[in-house]
Structure formats: C-alpha cells, structure tokens
C-alpha cells in the first residue's frame, strides 16, 4: 500500500459500533464518495434493525411497508426456518429506492461491517437508484412511501369492508400475473387529471377508509368508455383498448367486465409495485456491481488515508472477497453467475481499460480506452445502461478469458449438449451476445399479450404467447394462472402459442 497521503486518525478501533462512530464513518465515506468519485446521491436515512426485522423485511420483498398477504407469511416462515437452521445467512443490509434513500443495517454488524455496508448501500446503491435511467423513468422515489402507505391502508380497508377472503382472491390472482403487470416497451398512459387529484389527496394524508375507498369512481377509471368499446368493430376495438397489450393487469383493470372498482384498484396496486420493482430486476448485475465497486474503492481509500485500521481493513476485504466469489460451473457451490462478481469485475475492468489499456482494449473499446476520466466513464455507464445492454457494450475479451466463459447450447432436437463457444478470438462476440441475452428480461420472461376481447360477442379474452426458440410455458403453472385470470375476467380466457416469425 502506498504511504498515506494525508495521515489521519483511524475512524474507529474495535468491533463495537455506536451512532457517533457511524456518523464519523459516514462523513468520511461521504467525502470520498462525493468529492473523489463524484457520486450524486439522495439524502440517506440509515436505520438499524434486528435480525427479526430483517426477516420481516425479507418476506415483504424488501419494502418497508407492505399490505398483508399470506404469501409474505409463507416466505417469512421459509426464510425463518432456513435462518434458524443456519442454512441461510441474512443480508448485511437492505436498501430501498426512495428519497430519502432508506437503508437497513443489521445491528449484529461490527463497526467495520457497518462502514462497508454504508459505503455499499448508502452511497453505491443510492447513486445507482438516483442516476440510472430506468429508475428515473419508471419509479417515483419520492412518492413510493406514500404509495406503499396508501396501498397498505387501502387493502386493509378493503378487507374490512369486503372480507379478507374476497381480497385474498383478487390478490392471489393479481400476484399470479405480476410479471405480466409491467409495461416493458410502451409508456403507460398518463394518469387522468382526476386520478392525479385523487393521488394528491392520498399523499396529503386524505385519511379514513371510507373516503379512500371512494376516491376511485367510475369516471376516474375511465369506465364510461366501456359502452363505446362494446360497439366497436375489431380494428376500432384494438385501438380503443390499446391492443395488443402486454400489461395484462393494466388491461384487466381498465376493461374487465366483472371487476368492481375496488378490485380494479387492487390490481392497480399490484401492478404499480411490480412496475416499481421492474428496474431492479433488470439491473441486478449493474446495481450490485456499482455498489461493490464503490465500497471497494472507498475502503481502499480510507485505508490509504489511515482512517481504518489494518484489522478492520482485513475484515472488510474478507467479506468483500466472499461477496465477489464466482465458483466455476463444475463447483458444487455453483448456482449461476454471481451478479456481484460479474458486475464488480466489469467495472474494475472499465477502470483498467481507461487507465492502462492494451492494444486489444483499444481495438474493442475505442470510445473510452485510455480516457483519463474513468470516473466519468463509469458514471455514464451506471446512468445509461441496464444489465443486458451493459454486458453487450462493456464485457471485454480480457474478462471473458478471466472468467473462462463458454457457451453451452442445449437443443432439444439433439441428443447431447454442445459447447458452441469458448473464450477465444472467434468466440468473444458470441459469448458476449449470449451472456447479454441471459440478462434480457424480455427474453427470459414469456412474451404474453392480450390480443383480443370482443365485449359484444362471446367476451372471450384472447391471449397470445409468442414462442421463441421453441420454449413453451410450464403447463402446470400455466393452467393455474389461467384459472386466476378467468376469475378476474369473468368469462372464458384462451391462450394461444404462436411461434415467433423472426429470429433476432
């Protein structure tokens, strides 16, 4: 290690954390994060929680407030069983995409771990949430708390009024369609003015179950359009109902002939939350990579400056090394590519390409190889990419060699699996493309769209599953989901599989 540039006192000594020490550490981290790395973060709200509270948070998809549903209880029971029997540890932290950015730190963490976790979550993840385009476009960090509070109260009020069983039925069905409750390509239609006013009222603490339930009247939900729709012919119908429609929950909310307004509102809540979480699903590698890169840079900097002791530094590195470990495919511990490992390695690699490019790098990355401002290059990557495009753009031959990546093709027509690409000159591009595709949610999740619903005729809801590469839906689950769908639509539902016409 270099000699300390400016020798400073260690921030802490010993494993016990206190709020004073954490504030001191946070200030030191903040200085590096903002002034050196140039991060741009939401204000931080760091909360200390116990193991049980961490389990609570786990079961509710990491959100601080959540409506009640049996599936969360099920997840809690499972996580608790795993945790109690020692088969699963707990995360050191959970961080929420909100403004202020809330991160939950476990009370069991040592001071060294608290420091690491703050650098990771309160600055790394926080910067990513605030700056990545997906989060900026699709999530409302400032409003999520109010929305969650609204959702929780609304569903509790519905349970009170219509009975828990009736609410559960709708929620079960909505959860089954959660992945089909997001807009992937098109922007969602703007909320109407009435809806905006209603939302505003909710935000301002418009309380009382009575009024909360009555906010969403037929007019605000566009119900008066229904009559119009019924008279339209096929092409006009398609236009009026926004068909084909990938967001099935949205479609049901707007057009289901049998749902009551409160049921529509529940669908809306479920799809709003699915949409809110959708960017996180698309940026696992980048989000964790960014946070890991940031904490790694910061702890090294702190150590260089003499602000953390040798012992604490060793502890942090130990934890860091565990987090970024990538077992090889034939290792019993292998369970897919570790997003921390891949993200961190790619970001370190980008920095290397900027600072110390080889000829190969110059050939592959002419845009930024040798660019002295590696911080700027990284910030730009964090802001403008998601996993799929990030890998497609930035995975270097150097890393492919380092990870010894290879592509295995599994064609059901052939008797055996075939190694189709390995880490050589001929394979780099193909491996990069294959790996990027592995992170493309639009490819991973089935492409199912509402294609028609003749409200004047038999009222059958027609769905189309576009089959790519001959991969069909899992039949058992498919039938279950269709049952739920039938309940929400009220009439027959059909799902057709259509082979994709073009390969891309």
């Amino acid at each position: 290690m270099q000699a300390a540039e400016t020798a400073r006192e260690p921030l802490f000594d010993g494993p016990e954390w206190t709020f004073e020490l954490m504030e001191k550490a946070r200030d030191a981290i903040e200085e590096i994060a903002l002034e050196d790395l140039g991060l741009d973060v939401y204000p931080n709200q760091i909360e200390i929680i116990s193991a049980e509270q961490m389990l609570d948070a786990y079961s509710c998809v990491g959100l601080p407030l959540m409506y009640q549903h049996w599936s969360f209880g099920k997840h809690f029971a499972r996580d608790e069983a795993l945790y109690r029997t020692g088969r699963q540890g707990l995360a050191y932290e959970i961080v929420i995409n909100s403004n202020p950015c809330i991160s939950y730190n476990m009370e069991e963490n040592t001071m060294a771990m608290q420091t690491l976790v703050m650098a990771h979550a309160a600055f790394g993840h926080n910067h990513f949430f605030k700056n990545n385009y997906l989060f900026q476009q699709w999530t409302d960090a400032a409003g999520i708390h109010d929305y969650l509070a609204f959702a929780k109260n609304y569903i509790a009020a519905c349970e009170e009024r219509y009975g828990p069983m009736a609410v559960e039925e709708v929620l079960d069905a909505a959860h089954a369609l959660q992945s089909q409750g997001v807009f992937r390509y098109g922007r969602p239609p703007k909320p109407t003015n009435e809806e905006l006013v209603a939302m505003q009222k909710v935000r301002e603490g418009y309380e009382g179950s009575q009024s909360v339930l009555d906010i969403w009247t037929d007019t605000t939900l566009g119900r008066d359009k229904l009559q119009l729709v019924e008279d339209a012919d096929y092409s006009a119908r398609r236009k009026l109902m926004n068909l084909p429609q990938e967001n099935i929950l949205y479609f049901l909310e707007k057009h289901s002939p049998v749902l009551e307004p409160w049921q529509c509102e529940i669908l809306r809540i479920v799809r709003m939350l699915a949409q809110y979480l959708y960017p996180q699903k698309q940026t696992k590698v980048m989000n964790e990579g960014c946070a890991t890169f940031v904490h790694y840079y910061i702890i090294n900097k702190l150590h260089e400056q003499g602000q953390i002791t040798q012992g604490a530094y060793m502890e942090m590195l130990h934890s860091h090394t565990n987090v970024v470990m990538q077992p090889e495919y034939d290792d019993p511990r292998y369970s897919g590519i570790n997003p921390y490992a891949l993200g961190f390695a790619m970001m370190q690699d980008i920095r290397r390409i900027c600072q110390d490019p080889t000829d190969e790098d110059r050939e592959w990355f002419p845009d930024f190889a040798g660019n002295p401002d590696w911080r700027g290059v990284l910030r730009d990557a964090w802001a403008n990419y998601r996993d799929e495009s990030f890998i497609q753009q930035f995975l270097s031959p150097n890393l492919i060699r380092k990870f010894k990546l290879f592509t295995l093709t599994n064609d059901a027509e052939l008797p055996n699996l075939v190694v189709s690409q390995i880490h050589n000159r001929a394979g780099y591009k193909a491996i990069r493309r294959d790996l990027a595709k592995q992170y493309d949610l639009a490819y991973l999740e089935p492409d199912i769209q509402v294609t028609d619903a003749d409200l004047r005729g038999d009222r059958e809801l027609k769905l189309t599953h576009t089959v790519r590469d001959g991969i069909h839906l899992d039949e058992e689950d498919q039938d279950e989901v269709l049952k739920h769908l039938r309940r929400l639509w009220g009439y027959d539902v059909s799902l057709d599989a259509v082979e994709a016409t073009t390969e891309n």
Partner: protein
Amino acid sequence: MHHFIDRRANPKGKSLGNRQRFLRRARENIKERVDQSVRGKSIQGGGGVPDEGEKVTIPTRGLKEPRFFHSSKGGLRRHVLPGNKEFVVGDTIKRPQGGAGQGGRKASEDGEGEDEFSFTLTQEEYLEILFEGLELPDLVEKATVETETIGTRRAGLTTAGTPNNLNLVRTMRNSLGRRIALQRPTTKSQRDLEEQIAELEALDERTPPQEEFLETLRKKLEGVLRKRKVVGYIDPLDLRYDTFVPEKIRNSRAVVFCLMDVSGSMQEREKDLAKRFFLLLHLFLERCYEHTELVFVRHTHHAQEVDEETFFYARETGGTIVSTALEKMKEIIDERYPPDEWNIYGAQASDGENFGNDSVRCKNLLLNDLLPVSQFYAYVEIVDEAAEMLLNNPEAGEDLWQNYREVKAQAQHFEMQRVSQPGHIYPIFREFFLPKVKGAQYAGS
C-alpha cells in the same frame, strides 16, 4: 440531511398478520399433519408439544403461487457458464438427467419446485389447530392446584444435637483431619512398639545395648500411650449433627390416570378424540407440576394397567364394566400414590355404555373413594357426530351419564362433557383451570 434511526425498539411481529393469513390458507394441510403427528406422538415422551414449537412439513399444493414461466424442457437454449477448463468448440456433453439445464430460467423461483414446505408452528399455534379454534388461555397462568404438606427440610449441620442426627461422615472427616494434624500415633505404631518390647523381654539374657534399647522403647511407648490418650480418637469438637427445619412443602408431583373403555365400540375416531383429551390434561398439568406421571388403565369387563402403546393401539374384546377401571385406579392409588404426596387427576373416556346397574357402583366409587383424594376428575363421553340430540341435551343419556350427573351435582371438581369433535374437549378444562385455587381442600387425608 443524513440521519440515523434506531429501529430496533420497534414493535416486533410486523409480519404476524401475514403469518395468520398463511396459516389460515394452509390450514387444511397443516391440520392433516398435526393430526398425524398427534397420532404418532406419545403423551408421555416429552409431554406432547415442545415449548419451542412443532416442526411441520406440508405439501405445497394450495400454497403455490403460480406464474407464467418458461418450461425447463425443450427448445433451444444457450447458457453461458464460467470456468471452462478443457472444452473446445464442438465438444458434446451428455444431457444431465432430469432435463433442467443449468443457468437460464430459475427452475424453482421462491423454492417453488419443491413438493414440500417445512416450517415451525409455535406451541400456541399447534394447540390452536389441534383443538380446532378453541381459544387457549395462557396455560401457564392458570391453576396450580397444589396441596401443601408440612415436612422437614435439611438445614445444614450443627455442633449440637441428638445422637440419632449424628452425621457420621462429617464427624469422622473432622476426626481424621484433627488426628493427622495433631499427629496422634496410630494403633499400628503402638502395636509395633509393644511387639518389639515383648520380643526383647522374652529374651532370657539381654546384652547391655539391648537393655538400653528396651528402655528407650518403653519410654517411647509411654509417650505414645500418653499422646493417644490426650488426642482422642473422637473428640467432642469433631461431632457434627444434621439439622432439620419444618417447612411447608408444595406438593409438586402429579399423577394422571387415563381411564378408557376399549371394548369393541371404541373405534379409531373415538380413541383419537380420547387421546387428545388425555393429551390436553397432561399438557395443562405438565405446566403446573415439576413432575407428572401417567397411568393408563383400560377396561372392558375387567381392568388392566397397561403402557401407552397398548392403551391406544391394542384391541381387546369383552363386555363393559366401568367400575372395574375405577377400582383399579383406587387400587393403584393405594399402592403407589399416597394422596398426601401426589396430586391425583383422573381422566376417563368412554362411549357411555355400561353393564346393567354398574353405573350406580361407579357413582359410589367416585364419591366415596376417588373424588375425595383427587384434584380433578374429568369424564368425556364420546358420541357420534350425528347424535345431536345428545350433544344438545345434557339431560338425556344412558345410565352412566345419569349417574355421573348426580356425581357432578355433589362434587365441584368433577367435570363431564359430551364430545364428538376435538373442539368440544376444551370446555371441560376451561371452568376448572380458571385462575382460582380450588380442589385443594379435597387433598390430604
């Protein structure tokens, strides 16, 4: 702008509502498992339900959260894997059995691929399901029905006392220590000297050195004898006596008599209900007493004391004479469980049939012999679920029921109940185990 918040003190159990919803949802499955586990469970061994809860494994059906997702079979897939060692392009690998390739879609999102789901029910939840929605009160707080007897307790040692309380071990230990410390000559050293002297004296003629030696020996012996006299073998200083102080002793032992009719009319269902009944009583009592024992008495036209296994599962044919069981219980109490040392609980299950005029005999046995020495006696009559008339009308009933009604009229600590499903069992105990001290006056002789 930044701040820290300590959330640790926030109320726990934020996900309690979710858990309740989950248990309700899985109720059918859980109930099935709990029923199974009761059948397989011994009342004695570990006493029913462990405090830390009961682990149950239920099938996931009904708890499934279905989603649209790609099947793991068929089609064309490409997986990128790390750690290539020897593969070159074109190598083929045998398809792993089971079909699912690595990577790609997660085969079991949320652990869903599994057929079974395991988790732990707390004791309260377990009991709640076991007894179908009875509102279990806080078992612990209720009802320690205990007798008190005056006894004595050891209270250390004293230096004064009566010889019968002499603590020999302590006394001898003190004596030994004192003898060693004061160098009391041993009997052996005295005997050795005496022998040497006798040897010398036996000589007809002694040389002058021998004379001299004899003289020293004699002096030595004299000293030894004197010292042995001064330093006594046991000195009053050594004496230690046990002391006892009188004390009220809480009688914290209980015995539960499980009496059951095992004649042919008691089928699986009846026995299962009876088992829950015994289990619940035992559970209550286990919380109250340091030590509980179970005695199983089964009867047809004669009664036998048997082990639990035989009690519930062995078959026996014969008529039904209830009083034999009561007599057996009395006999066992007389033999092994003196009422001033044991809290005696009786639990009797039957389908209500009895031979001829035996029921009057039962009444008398209970009133004269058993109830005076028992803390509590509960009787359940297991009836058909269809027998609504009986369930709703406590006045109707067979001979045995009628006689027991008379018993109830005379004894507060006797409870009886008709039962056709598990939920009926609890009320028997409810009254009795309310927080008031009761029944103690019947104990003791």
